[in-house]
């Protein structure tokens, strides 16, 4: 058996897990693991032709179990996701080395477990990404779920509660997928992709419906799609800092990967068009699209209400997933490219944002948006990273988030979907509102007196953040770099490919060239700066207490930072719309289970068991005789 490139990658990944497990207690685990991630990334780079339309690489390893063949292989899709996974793992783990690590250990955290959980996550994700048939997909899927659980639960306390909630959701999702796989197996007679591809074209409508629902729900739970989104924010937010950066960047995108693989590639997203919902005008694809936009809107506006920076970001992570799905569901060249590109973009800025917030927590000890403020003068680099990140998140030029959202909007416009378009824009506007709240309440406004001596985040944390910020900007300036990978992914999953250039997209009906746009923007800033700095006197910096307050004398002990209930006017109108309906739904399901459980226990607690027995016997015999 000769090792293929894929085998090498998986081997390195496995070795990383082993190293973290065996040596992690004594040696400096963080650095070791980081270097090993680097090696994995190099191994992945050897497969780089995949990202430019190369032939898929199979693993030499196959198993034959219970009549099923298990195989693994990498194509452009896997490669693209693996690149994001390893990149975010490398940077998060780098970020964790050094001061964060010391502080984590001092506050009673289990560093060994943390690194082990991270390596397990990466390993299981690679296994999932490499899956060569539906069964190995499911195995990878479950591994990812449980590895994620480990990472989420390890902080204890609230985190464990959130993780428990997650795993319950994840199990429900897994079981839906499991059921779907069984149905597929029955109709295709095999779980190999080729067999499913041929079987999918001959499936009955009812069958296809069932599969779409089962797989959609199962994968959607991981992605945090609309009715199943509740678990994600608390689970990600409570994970130890670098862990949440990693999870936020890529973990829930595994759901998208699976959707791409199963719903888009195997069943064909366009086939889903034929699934009409009776008595309405919409079909399954519209349904998915609407789920996507509701996933954009509701979590985004929930994020706006959060007062904890990490919760806010985590909620946005859910919302941004909606854009990805939306782009994919539109499924034309630009939409799909936008959706796929957003995976990359989201990973970069979400990781940067979580890292920046963790850096703030590291220095100030809190992520409560009502207890911070004015930190820009003390942590300017972190501020810059956060700024770059939120511009990306809000999807404004010149950062990369803009490009992917532009593509999604453009495709909605091309296809003539006004409502979806507007809904997507509402999501973006909500994002802008809430990210301003984030940056304002942490970095702008009044610096609290207790934060006067705060230092900038240590370099061990700063460097990965700066790298991410650079990536966010560069891929915003030259979106052609990731778009090349995206194009080969589109090819691999059988979607139309857009006509991309280094600076954006070429199209007869309006193109985008970020090099020009950004060039002009920065030229504009330059002219603005010229006017500002040369046409006008030298400015003098004043203390923040030298501030207009209606003639009032401000002192350091007065808290005048405007942070709580930040969008009061908006909340006057829409505050009443936050009903927690999904929370209520979740609670009622839980109560129902509790109630049923109580009933069942009552059944077993009854003393007259003999009565049951006899009556059952009687009933059964009566049933037979009649």
């Amino acid at each position, binding site marked *: 058996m000769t090792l293929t490139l894929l085998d090498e990658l998986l081997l390195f990944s496995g070795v990383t897990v082993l190293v973290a497990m065996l040596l992690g207690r004594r040696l400096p685990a963080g650095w070791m693991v980081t270097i090993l991630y680097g090696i994995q990334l190099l191994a992945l780079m050897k497969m780089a032709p995949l990202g430019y339309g190369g032939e898929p690489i199979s693993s030499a390893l196959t198993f034959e179990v219970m009549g099923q063949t298990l195989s693994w292989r990498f194509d452009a899709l896997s490669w693209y996701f693996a690149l994001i996974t390893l990149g975010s793992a490398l940077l998060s783990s780098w970020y964790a080395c050094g001061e964060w690590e010391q502080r984590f250990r001092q506050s009673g955290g289990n560093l060994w477990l943390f690194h082990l959980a991270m390596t397990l996550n990466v390993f299981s994700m690679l296994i999932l990404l490499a899956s060569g048939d539906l069964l190995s997909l499911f195995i990878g899927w479950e591994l990812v779920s449980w590895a994620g659980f480990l990472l989420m639960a390890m902080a204890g306390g609230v985190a464990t509660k959130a993780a428990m909630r997650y795993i319950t959701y994840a199990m429900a999702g897994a079981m839906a997928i499991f059921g779907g796989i069984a149905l597929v197996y029955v109709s295709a007679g095999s779980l190999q992709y080729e067999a499913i591809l041929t079987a999918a074209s001959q499936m009955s409508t009812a069958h296809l419906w069932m599969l779409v629902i089962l797989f959609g729900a199962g994968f959607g739970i991981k992605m945090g799609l609309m009715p199943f989104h509740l678990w994600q924010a608390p689970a990600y937010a409570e994970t130890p800092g670098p862990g949440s950066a990693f999870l936020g960047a890529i973990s829930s995108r595994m759901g998208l990967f699976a959707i791409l693989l199963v719903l888009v590639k195997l069943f064909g997203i366009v086939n889903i068009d034929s699934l009409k919902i009776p008595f309405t005008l919409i079909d399954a694809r519209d349904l998915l699209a609407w789920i996507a936009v509701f996933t954009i809107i509701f979590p985004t506006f929930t994020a706006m209400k959060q007062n904890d920076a990490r919760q806010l970001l985590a909620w946005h992570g859910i919302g941004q997933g909606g854009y990805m799905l939306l782009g994919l569901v539109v499924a034309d060249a630009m939409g799909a490219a936008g959706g796929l590109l957003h995976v990359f973009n989201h990973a970069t800025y979400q990781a940067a944002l979580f890292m920046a917030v963790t850096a703030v927590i590291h220095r100030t000890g809190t992520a409560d948006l009502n207890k911070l*403020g004015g930190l820009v003068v003390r942590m300017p680099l972190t*501020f810059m990273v956060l700024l770059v990140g939120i*511009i990306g998140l809000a*999807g*404004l*030029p010149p950062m990369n988030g803009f490009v992917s959202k*532009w593509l999604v909007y453009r495709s909605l*416009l091309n296809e*003539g979907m*006004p409502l979806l*378009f*507007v809904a997507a824009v*509402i999501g973006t*506007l*909500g994002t*802008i*509102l809430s990210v*301003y709240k984030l940056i*304002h309440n942490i*970095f*702008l*406004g009044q610096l609290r007196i207790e934060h006067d001596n705060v230092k900038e985040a240590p370099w061990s944390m700063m460097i990965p953040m700066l790298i991410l910020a650079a990536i966010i900007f560069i891929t915003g300036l030259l979106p052609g770099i990731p778009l090349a990978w995206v194009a080969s992914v589109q090819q691999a999953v059988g979607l139309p490919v857009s006509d991309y250039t280094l600076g954006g997209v070429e199209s*007869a*009906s*309006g*193109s*985008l*060239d970020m090099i*020009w*746009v950004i060039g*002009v*923007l*920065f030229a*504009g*800033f330059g*002219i*603005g*700066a010229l*006017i*500002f700095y040369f046409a*006008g*006197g030298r*400015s*003098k*910096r*004043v203390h*923040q207490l030298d*501030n*207009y307050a*209606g003639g009032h004398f401000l002192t350091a002990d007065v808290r*005048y*930072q*405007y942070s709580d209930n*930040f*969008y*009061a*006017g*908006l909340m*006057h*109108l829409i505050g009443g719309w936050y009903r927690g309906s999904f929370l209520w739904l979740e609670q009622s399901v839980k109560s129902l289970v509790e109630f049923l459980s109580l009933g069942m226990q009552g059944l077993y607690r009854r003393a007259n068991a003999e009565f049951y027995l006899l009556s059952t016997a009687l009933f059964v015999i009566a049933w037979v005789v009649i």
Partner: protein
Amino acid sequence: MAPMELIIELLLMPLVAFVVGMMMVLMMRRIAAKLQRRIGPPFFQPLYDIVKLHSKQTQISHGLIHDIGIVMAMGGYIAAETLLPVPGMTGIAEKGGIITLLYLMMIPSLGLALGVGQCANPNGSIGIARALTAMLAYDIPLVIVIFGVAYAAGTTNLVDIIAVQQAGGFETWGAVQMPVLAIAGLIAMHASLGKQPFEIYIAPAEIATGPMVEMSGKYLGGLFVMQCFQLYTTSVLYVSLFLGGGTTWFDFLLKSFLVLAIPVSIAYLFPRYRTEDLLRLMWKWPVMLGLIGVAFVL
């Protein structure tokens, strides 16, 4: 296009926008004065204000971000102007299209928001919170309108959108083809100007001009410049979307000033809405009109 020519265009377009914008500010103040039976400011008043503000001896800065905010507020619009075609000059309009333009128009607000945030004045922060809320209010009808126009024209390239309208004279103007969208667009545009009755974020009486509260000297001057650009951009965008742009500078400017005159004339007849009323109004009427208009287009 020769690169030199392009560079000249790129420099000229913001300059034109600034000059025209100053005249628009003047027109706005004159209209207000006329409605209140006053004489109003002299012709060069906007220029006097800007020069005076930049020539102030004391320039109070609250920090680097305060400065950068103003630079972004001006620079964002300067960049945006190059995406907005005017007669004879298209700049780089075809490189980004209307969606990019819309987003570039948000950059100044974001820059201003950052600068105001650094000032650490609660009035300013409240103003920004309200400004962003207002943006949430008027951008929804605005994007519906833009969707409708772009879909009808089959392109997001503003040059093409204008060309489509100019193809058949008056009959092919957006406002004639899509009157409902044009009305919705006008309301959204009015709100985006932040004039009465929608000036919830300036609100001098309660939050001391909100975002501008800590702005003095050239900082305020920068915002005055930004206001010129804002008026220009808004009205020219509307002209490009609905009134067929301009074939000559004369009709182009005429249309732009006329379009701007409508919301400005209405503005000074009204007191101010509360935030939630603004939201309610914006999410109800223009959205409804916009959707009806889009339904016609589809």
